[in-house]
C-alpha cells in the first residue's frame, strides 16, 4: 500500500514539475511578446512619413523626424564594417586554416573574452584613444568602438563556418598543386560563404542597436551628419536621449524610433535564420 502511494506521489510530482518547466518557457516568451507588443503598438501610432524624411525640430515645434539619426546609424555601421570585416575574416581564416592548436586556443580565448567586455568599456577605450587626442567627439571614434565589438564575433563565426568545409576539398585542391592561399580564398572561403555572411549580418544587427559605446564617442548631433571627424547622431542614441527627456513629443518619437530599430534588428535576424535554415535542409 505504501509503495503504491509512493508511486502515485512520484507520478504527480513528475507531472507537476514538467508543467512548471513548460510554464517557465511560456513566461520567457511572454516577456518577448510584452516588449515587442508595446514597441509595435506605441511605435506604429507615433510613426509617420515625416519621421524618416524630416530632420529633428526644436522642442515645441510639431513634426520633425530622425532622418539624420537614421542616416547616422547607417554611417556608423558602415565605418565599423569597413574596419571589422577584414580583421575579423582574416583572424577567422588564421584560426581555421593556419593556426597550431596552442595559438588557436589562445586567440580564441582572447576573442571570447573580448566579446564579453561590456560595451560601455569599449566606449571608454575609444574615447581615450580617439576622442581625447583629437579633441572632438567623432563618427570615426564611434565606428571604431563598434568595430571592436564586431571583430571577435565575425572572427569566431567565420572560423566555425570555415571548419565545416570538408577536408576532402582542401586535399583535392592541394593535389592539383595550387598554393594554399589561393585554395583558401578560392575554394574554402566560397564554400563557407553562407555561414560567414550569416555571422556578419548578425554582428551588424547587434552593433546597429548598441547605444552605450556611442554616448561619449558619437555624442549625437543637432546639425545632422557633417563628416567623419564631427559628432554624429544615431537611432539608438536618440531613443535614449528622447526617452529620458521630459517632453512627451520626444518620448513619442523615442517609441517610433524604437519601432524602426526593432524592425531593422529583428528583420535581419529573422531573414538570416530563415535563409541558413533553408540551406541546411
Amino acid at each position, binding site marked *: 500500500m505504501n509503495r503504491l502511494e509512493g508511486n502515485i506521489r*512520484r507520478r504527480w*510530482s*513528475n507531472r507537476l514539475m514538467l508543467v*512548471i*518547466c513548460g510554464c*517557465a*518557457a511560456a*513566461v*520567457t*516568451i511572454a516577456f*518577448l511578446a*510584452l*516588449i515587442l507588443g508595446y*514597441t509595435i503598438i506605441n511605435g506604429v501610432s507615433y510613426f509617420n512619413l515625416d519621421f524618416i524624411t524630416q530632420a529633428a525640430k526644436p522642442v515645441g515645434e510639431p513634426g520633425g523626424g530622425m532622418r539624420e539619426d537614421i542616416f547616422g546609424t547607417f554611417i556608423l555601421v558602415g565605418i565599423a564594417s569597413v574596419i571589422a570585416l577584414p*580583421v575579423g575574416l*582574416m*583572424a577567422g*581564416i*588564421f*584560426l581555421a586554416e*593556419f*593556426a597550431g592548436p596552442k595559438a588557436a*586556443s589562445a586567440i*580564441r580565448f582572447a*576573442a571570447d*573574452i*573580448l566579446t*564579453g*567586455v*561590456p560595451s*560601455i*568599456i*569599449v566606449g*571608454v577605450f575609444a574615447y*581615450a584613444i580617439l576622442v*581625447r587626442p583629437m579633441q572632438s567627439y567623432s563618427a570615426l571614434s564611434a565606428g571604431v568602438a563598434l568595430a571592436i565589438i564586431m*571583430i*571577435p564575433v565575425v*572572427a*569566431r563565426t567565420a*572560423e566555425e563556418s570555415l571548419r565545416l568545409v570538408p577536408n576532402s576539398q582542401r586535399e583535392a585542391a592541394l593535389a592539383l598543386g595550387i*598554393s*594554399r*592561399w*589561393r585554395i583558401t580564398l578560392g575554394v574554402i572561403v566560397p564554400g563557407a560563404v553562407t555561414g560567414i555572411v550569416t555571422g556578419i549580418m548578425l554582428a551588424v544587427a547587434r552593433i546597429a*542597436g548598441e*547605444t*552605450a559605446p556611442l*554616448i561619449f564617442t558619437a555624442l549625437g548631433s543637432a546639425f545632422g551628419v557633417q563628416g567623419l571627424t564631427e559628432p554624429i547622431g544615431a537611432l*539608438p542614441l536618440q*531613443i*535614449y536621449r528622447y*526617452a*529620458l527627456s521630459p517632453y512627451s513629443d520626444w*518620448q513619442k518619437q523615442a517609441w517610433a524610433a*524604437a519601432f524602426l*530599430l*526593432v524592425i531593422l534588428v*529583428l528583420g535581419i535576424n529573422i531573414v538570416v*535564420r530563415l535563409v541558413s535554415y533553408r540551406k541546411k535542409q
Partner: protein
Amino acid sequence: MARPRVGDRIFSSLTLFFALLIVLILGGLLVVLNIDAWPAIQKFGIAFLTSIEWDPVREEFGALPAVYGTLLSSLIGLIIAVPISLASAIFLSELAPEWISRPVSFLIEMLAAIPSVIIGLWGLFVMVPFIRDPIEKWLGSNLGFLPFFQGPPFGVGFLSAGIILAIMIIPIITAISRDVMSAVPATQREAMLALGATHWEMITGAVLPYCRSGLVGAVILGLGRALGETMAVTMVIGNSYKLTLSLFSPGSTIASKVASEFSEASGDLYIGSLITLALVLFGITLVVNIIARLLVWRSVSVKGTGE
C-alpha cells in the same frame, strides 16, 4: 617536400597579424584604461573602493555605492533568471517535441537580439509604473518588516533594474543550458529510465548532475552579461548614489554611473575616477567571464568548437 611558397608565407603571416590584433586590442584596453585612470588611482588609492563619496565639486570620489549597486542588481537578476532559465532549458532540451522546441528557441533568441535601449524604453514607460504599483506597494505592506522592502515605492530603483536584467539574461542562460543539456549522452538518460525512474527523476538524477559544471558556467556567463549591462539599467535604476538595503530605492551601477556622467565630466580627476570605475568593472567581468568560459568549454567540448 617543396619549400613553402612565398605567397603562402605572406598570406599566413597576414592572417596571423590580424588574429594578433584581437589580442592587441584586449591588451590595449587594459593598458589605456590604466593610464587614464592613473590620476584617480594615485590620488585615492585603494580607498577609492571603500569610499561612498561622489562629489565632483569638491573632487571627492569613491566607488562603493556603484560596486554595491552593480552586485545587488545582478544578484536580483540572477535570483529571478536562474530558475526560469533552467526550467525553460529543461523544457526545450528534455520535454518539448521538435515542432515546439524549434520555434520557442527561435523566439528566445529574438528576445536576446532586442537592443538593450529598447528594453530600457519599455522598462521605463511600461514596467516601472507596474513595479511601483502594485508590486512594490504589495511587497511594502505585506513583507515590509524585511529591510529590503522598506521605504517609499519609487518604481525606478534596484528592484526594477534587477528585473530588467533578469529579462535580458534569461535568453542567454537558457540557450547555453539547453546546449549543455543536449550534449548529455542518451545512454545516461536510458540507464536512468531503465531503473524505473519517472521523466522528472531522470532529469534530476541523470541529466542535471552530468552537466552541472556546464550549467554553472551558463549562469556565470549570464552574470557577466548582467554586471556590464548598461543602457536598460541606466534607464530604470534612478541614478542616485547611496548605500541602502531597500530594493525600492533608486541607485547606480558602475555602468550606469559611467554612462550617465562621462560626457559631462570635466577635469582629469573626475574623468579619471569614472575610468577607474570602468576599470573595476572590467576586472570583475574579466574574472567572471574567464571562469564561465572554462566551465562551459569543458562541458560542451564533446560537440563544441574546440579540438
